[in-house]
């Protein structure tokens, strides 16, 4: 491996260890929830990554539609996949949290509901991409869909919030104030998570690009060989 890769991995490893230390040892338990609050560092940070990833998918989709360069499409595709994984994390950690704090694995809380809808929306995005063979068309369709889905997310969240507003809301964050140490921990986990996202996005994009290039080159080689055979044959 190259030097920058070692540096990157070491940095990542250190970040992870520090984050783990901050989460579980340095930061205090919360007054009412106790140690359960520690899930939050993981949960909220995952959510931030998921939203960022989908936002970037939508943005890069538009860039692709305008500039028509494959790299944007490849990056958008990879970003949606990462976002999907982190949305799953959010749902799982949210359920664990819910069970511990509200004594229920699932509730139709606005944020939870939106996250679940988000999960379905991008599941469809990935399936849509995978089921269209024409590369140009798949990229365009996915860009348009990604953009519309991203526009719809705030609308969905707002409407679900209003919806809950009418019905009794079991979840409140009232009386939840964070001591500075908790704030630092939360901030640090944001940094680590976003850094992790950036690294995975970057490597995966390069891989996606290389894989596409490889397939193109193989095709070229096949054509060139055919031409060569033709010439020798005639």
């Amino acid at each position, binding site marked *: *491996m190259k030097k920058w*890769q070692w540096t990157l*991995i070491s940095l*990542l*490893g250190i970040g*992870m*260890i520090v*984050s*783990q230390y901050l*989460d*579980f040892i340095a930061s205090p338990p919360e007054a009412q929830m*106790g*140690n*359960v609050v*520690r*899930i939050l560092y*993981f949960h909220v940070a995952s959510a931030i990554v998921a939203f960022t990833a989908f936002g970037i998918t939508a943005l890069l989709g538009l860039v692709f539609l305008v500039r028509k360069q494959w790299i944007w499409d490849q990056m958008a595709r990879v970003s949606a996949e990462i976002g999907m994984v982190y949305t799953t994390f959010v749902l799982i950690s949210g359920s*664990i949290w819910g069970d*511990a704090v509200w004594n229920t694995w699932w509730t139709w809380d606005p944020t939870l509901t939106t996250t679940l809808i988000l999960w379905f929306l991008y599941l469809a995005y990935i399936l849509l991409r995978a089921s269209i063979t024409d590369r140009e068309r798949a990229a365009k369709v996915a860009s348009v869909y990604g953009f519309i889905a991203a526009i719809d997310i705030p609308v969905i969240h707002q409407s679900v919030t209003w919806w809950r507003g009418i019905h009794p809301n079991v979840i409140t964050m009232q009386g939840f104030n964070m001591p500075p140490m908790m704030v630092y921990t939360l901030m640090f986990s944001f940094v680590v998570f976003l850094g*992790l996202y950036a*690294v*995975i996005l970057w*490597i*995966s994009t*390069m*891989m996606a690009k*290389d*894989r596409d*290039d*490889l397939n193109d*080159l*193989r095709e*070229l*080689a096949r054509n*060139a*060989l055919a031409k*060569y055979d033709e010439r020798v044959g005639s």
Partner: protein
Amino acid sequence: MIMLGYLFAAAAVVWVGTFFYVVALLQRQRRLRLELEDVKRMLEEIKE
């Protein structure tokens, strides 16, 4: 109430998993690069 120990272990597992995933990703990427170079070289040879 969830035990702190379990929580710690679960988080640690996720971290370690992610870490090795990134390492594996880097390695896969490197192998892909090498293969790409290979095909490129082969293409050059064919052209000549």
